[in-house]
């Protein structure tokens, strides 16, 4: 993009490291994405978004601020985008998916911390990401202890960070607390943006974000077909881009893609052989450019048909926000209810999630489930035992993969994934 270097410079980005990062990420993207065969044409848009990842969207964010709008950076699926957009703001999910920035955070964070937190902190501290630098402030949440404490460091030393308290139970008392948090966030956005959020504006943005959810639901439903009309890698990329692209443009592009996939399904056309094992991935988020597991699975002859993750179903699957209330109070309640329904492992009890994994495995006709946990992600890691028991009961093969963002364990992971696929194949022969 023309003028990108000037923009980066004005944002204070470390230009040399930024070049290094874009080169490295571009190479990975080429290896992982461009070597796939029979990709839908509709992926061209998403390839383009990735090729301009540090340019076009950050430019839109910068321009939005010039016009007086606010830009908010987020880290989690619990921050209600509807409220940000209703206050004439933009929200973007921030960069936490690469070990490129670890060295920038190593001196202030413990070694045994989840890679997502380390990566995000590194991108901010090292001035490596135009997304961070083009934000007015960050909105964190209390979904894990590591993030909670890291947000304090971010807020005190690097960038103003507002915290929404996500409760850890789903009873009525906790719902009250969460509703209060949603109301406070609305006030925070109003104060920051200097606008009053009207019922009309909020109603409009509820529809905007619901439309994005529905487009993603449509995409995921198409993956239930055999053969799937789109690879897991491509679907994952679409989900990842949902977090930061302009919602209206994104939704229309996903729907275009889905129109094409509808045609493919009608013609029985898929990206892989109908006999390729169908794998569901369940667990932790995969943030751009983390395509490691999907790439191993899909270069071993299998296909990922669903992600039960924060960068998958957890982002959009829960019933949409109820669009019927026409007053602010009712709308905020509808928002609070929708978000509280998300099945994150930070909740206890969390049996809903376990049941949902079993349902998804059946709906998506998964022949095996890979339980994916990021290293040191305690809640997802421990919850594995319950998922294991539930899937064992259903006779659905399961394997746990615990990893981080490094490339060093790819050989070992490949052996485990291939072994898992061999196990599924020998099951099928019986």
């Amino acid at each position, binding site marked *: 993009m023309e003028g990108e270097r000037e923009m980066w410079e004005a944002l204070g980005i470390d230009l040399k490291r930024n070049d290094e990062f874009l080169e490295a990420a571009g190479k990975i993207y080429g290896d992982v994405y461009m070597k796939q065969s029979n990709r839908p044409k509709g992926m061209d848009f998403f390839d383009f978004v990735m090729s301009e990842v540090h340019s076009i969207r950050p430019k839109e964010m910068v321009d939005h601020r010039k016009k007086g709008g606010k830009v908010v950076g987020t880290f989690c699926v619990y921050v209600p985008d509807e409220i940000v957009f209703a206050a004439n703001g933009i929200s973007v999910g921030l960069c936490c998916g690469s070990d490129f920035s670890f060295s920038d955070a190593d001196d202030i964070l413990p070694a045994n911390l989840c890679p997502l937190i380390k990566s995000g902190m590194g991108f901010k501290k090292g001035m490596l990401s135009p997304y961070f630098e083009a934000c007015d402030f960050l909105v964190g949440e209390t979904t894990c202890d590591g993030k909670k404490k890291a947000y304090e460091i971010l807020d005190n030393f690097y960038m103003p960070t507002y915290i929404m308290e996500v409760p850890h139970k789903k009873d009525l008392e906790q719902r009250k607390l969460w509703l209060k948090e949603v109301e406070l966030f609305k006030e925070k956005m109003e104060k920051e943006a200097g606008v009053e959020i009207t019922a009309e504006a909020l109603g409009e943005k509820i529809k905007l974000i619901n439309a994005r959810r529905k487009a993603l639901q449509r995409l995921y439903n198409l993956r239930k077909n055999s053969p799937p009309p789109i690879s897991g890698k491509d679907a994952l990329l679409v989900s990842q881009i949902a977090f930061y692209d302009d919602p209206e443009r994104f939704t229309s592009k996903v729907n275009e893609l889905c129109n094409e996939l509808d045609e493919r399904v009608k013609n029985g056309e898929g990206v892989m052989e109908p006999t390729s094992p169908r794998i569901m991935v369940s667990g932790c988020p995969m943030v751009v450019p983390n395509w490691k597991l999907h790439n191993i699975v899909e270069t071993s002859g299998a296909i990922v048909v669903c992600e039960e993750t924060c960068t998958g179903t957890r982002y959009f699957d829960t019933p949409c926000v109820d669009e019927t209330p026409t007053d602010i109070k009712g709308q905020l309640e509808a928002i609070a209810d929708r978000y509280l329904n998300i099945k994150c492992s930070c909740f206890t009890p969390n049996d809903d999630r376990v049941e949902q994994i079993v349902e998804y495995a059946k709906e998506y006709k998964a022949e095996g489930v890979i339980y994916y946990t990021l290293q040191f992600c305690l809640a997802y890691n421990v919850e594995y035992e319950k998922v294991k028991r539930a899937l064992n009961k259903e006779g659905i093969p399961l394997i746990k993969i615990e990893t981080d963002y490094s490339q060093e364990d790819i050989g070992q992971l490949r052996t485990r994934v*291939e*072994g898992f696929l*061999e196990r599924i194949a020998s099951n099928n022969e019986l």
Partner: protein
Amino acid sequence: MFAGIDIGSLFTKAVVLKDGEIAGLSRISSRTDPKRGCEQALEEAVTKAGCNNVNIKCIVATGYGRRSCSFADKNVTELTCHATGAYYLNPNIRTIIDIGGQDSKVIKLDGKGNMADFMMNDKCAAGTGRFLEVMAQALEIGLDSMGEVSLTSDAPCSLSSTCTVFAETEVISLIASGADKEDIVAGLHMSIAKRVGSMVKSLGLQKEVAFTGGVAKNSGVKAAFEEFLGTKFANIDEDPQIIGALGAALVASKS
């Protein structure tokens, strides 16, 4: 005739099958040049079988270096190969503990010899052949004599670290504090048994249990496992280090 090649981190093993029987086998050090290692290993096994390469109908490569074996017809993971090899030698086997140079794994078999489940250790030398190598160096005793030495201990040391680096530090301080070598070695063996044994327990211990891989040659580790798991290992009348290659040859013969 069929051949299986198991390219491990420390050794490459090859097995040639003729009329469903092992006709030749070999073991070559493959630390530095795994590619050359697999050519050599196959050559040696073929020579021992008294035949030549052209008679081989199918070659299956396995082990961590399986992709570097350019002349193989097929790659199969060592998980499937160990399952196939051990089941062939003893069809009563339902659990396999395999400890090689750089990883350890536990494989569960169903009644037909198919792999029903497995677990592997991650990204770390703890509880592997390499772990024992490092410890043997720290203790200045031969790797091959560790088993025998440990069996003379009647008071094994307790080691809290399973990490290779930390365990080495712990071993050095134990030496400094005057602990007997046999007790330290016995303690190390028990630490492996506990670490890998907990994977067995996690999958659910089912008899018979086989112990394969290079570390299965260490009688001390074997005894530690038997104590920790409360069960004896099943007999397999073959070098435990070639089970993967044997399994690969069997997979070749089936495809």
